[in-house]
């Protein structure tokens, strides 16, 4: 039973990574930008919930407000920080440095407004207890179900809707997409909005699971989500999900083996291994370089 709960724990935290990894992967897929600030969006989402609940807003409003605010934040970040670089075909390294800059900016802004200490989040969802081996796993199950639903929704969006197809076309060849009449600038903004909204859903689950937030919470979490996205095959939606779940499982495995101090080392060793043997990731496609 101990192992079952540990596996569930791993999948539960993996689900939160997954929601961040999906956004990483989407943005990378469409604009080939590793948006290192994306992890910090989960922090922005967390503080939005904290503020709204602190103002006695009903729970649904805190959740919706957080998702909406993060979507807008994602759009603003694209407009202010990346737009000109992307439109002028700036070198990838310039984009990467800008993304790290945005990340540091968001972390410092949160410290400035809310202080460096962690803030408690009141109990959010009261779920009926589901016990496995004496442990209540209902929150963990909630995380897994929500992440799977979000992934399925995103798959549906990308594969069946008009804007989703425009995203795929832009991702493959932005010039050809323009020739089709696709406004690639709007597609990119939409991608940032959806990715950030998913991170906000991650923030909701995070707040509900750990019941506290802090300005730097997005740093390591974002890094792990990035690892998960690369691991699963960056640009692939099911890949991001799979990578994140495996990562969560690997973490709980190191706990089971009594090596929790090695947890982060395990994560990054995993990344290095996969990149050595399968550079495109588990479900990634080899990108054909365009001439």
């Amino acid at each position, binding site marked *: 039973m101990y192992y079952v709960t540990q596996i569930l724990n791993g999948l539960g935290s993996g689900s939160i990574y997954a929601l961040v990894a999906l956004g990483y992967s989407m943005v990378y897929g469409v604009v080939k930008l590793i948006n290192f600030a994306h992890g910090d969006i989960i922090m922005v989402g967390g503080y939005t919930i904290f503020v709204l609940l602190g103002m006695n807003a009903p729970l649904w409003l805190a959740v919706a407000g957080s998702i909406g605010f993060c979507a807008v934040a994602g759009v603003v970040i694209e407009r202010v920080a990346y737009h000109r670089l992307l439109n002028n075909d700036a070198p990838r390294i310039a984009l990467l440095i800008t993304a790290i800059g945005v990340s540091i900016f968001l972390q410092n802004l949160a410290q400035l407004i809310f202080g460096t200490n962690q803030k408690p989040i009141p109990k959010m969802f009261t779920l009926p207890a589901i016990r496995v081996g004496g442990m209540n796993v209902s929150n963990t199950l909630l995380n897994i179900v929500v992440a799977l639903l979000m992934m399925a929704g995103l798959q549906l969006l990308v594969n069946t809707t008009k804007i989703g197809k425009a995203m795929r076309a832009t991702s493959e060849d932005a010039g*050809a997409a*323009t*020739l*089709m009449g696709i406004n*690639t600038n709007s597609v990119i903004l939409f991608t940032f909005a959806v990715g950030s909204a998913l991170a906000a859903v991650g923030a909701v689950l995070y707040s509900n699971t750990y019941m506290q937030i802090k300005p730097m919470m997005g740093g390591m979490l974002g890094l792990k989500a990035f690892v998960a996205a690369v691991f699963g095959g960056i640009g692939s939606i099911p890949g991001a999900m799979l990578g994140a779940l495996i990562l969560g499982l690997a973490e709980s495995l190191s706990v089971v083996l009594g090596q929790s101090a090695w947890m982060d080392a395990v994560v990054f060793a995993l990344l290095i291994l996969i990149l050595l043997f399968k550079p495109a990731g588990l479900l990634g496609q080899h990108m054909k370089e365009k001439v």
Partner: protein
Amino acid sequence: MTRGSSRLIWGVTRLKKKMLEVSDLQVYYGAIHAIKGVRFEVDEGEIVTLIGANGAGKTTILHAVSGLVRPRSGGITFCGQDLLATKPHQITGLGLAQVPEGRRVFSRMTVKENLEMGAYARKDSIGIKEDYDRVLTILPRLKERRRQLAGTLSGGEQQMLSMGRALMAQPKMLLLDEPSMGLSPLLVQEIFRTIREINAGGVTILLVEQNAKMALELASRAYVLETGKVAMQGAAKELADNEEVKKAYLGG
């Protein structure tokens, strides 16, 4: 060299209408001066070809017309609309579609999805369905492959798909950039036959080619581009007989 100036419509001789007009076009890539004051025009219903060696600037001109590169100066109008004042993604909706160099089909989408992307700017779902069927009639090779990923098609099939995709935009005018590139002689024949058929269906054609012989046979008028400038222009037949053109582009 002269230009034909009239054509017969319902028994009435009418002056040709200008469809695309490019004037004093100047395009730079950073410090590289790629297009140095090019001027040309295409009339409604015509097939015009733009020939020239590698790097002459043919693709750059088509990119400028479709809004993929921004010229430093000059004018581009299509059916009286100023294309330089039009957002790039809105140009297709005006009835100007391009079949780009190297096909550029969406390789991870199916043939059907690629054709649907061609109609992205359109709202008339009934008309789109009709055009979808019509495109599969003009390009029958695509029909049995419509559920296949475009990336798995042969080069010739991808070229057909790229043309079909552009036709899905219901264009008044089609820009084709080296549609014969890398294809077998037989397939080139088929592509050129299809272009003639599309033109007979009322679509004006601007054809960029390195295969000057076939392009000059198909087109009514031609422009010869050399290092960013129009070196010669005139009726395609006359250019095909021109000694200089023969030597430089027709292999003697």
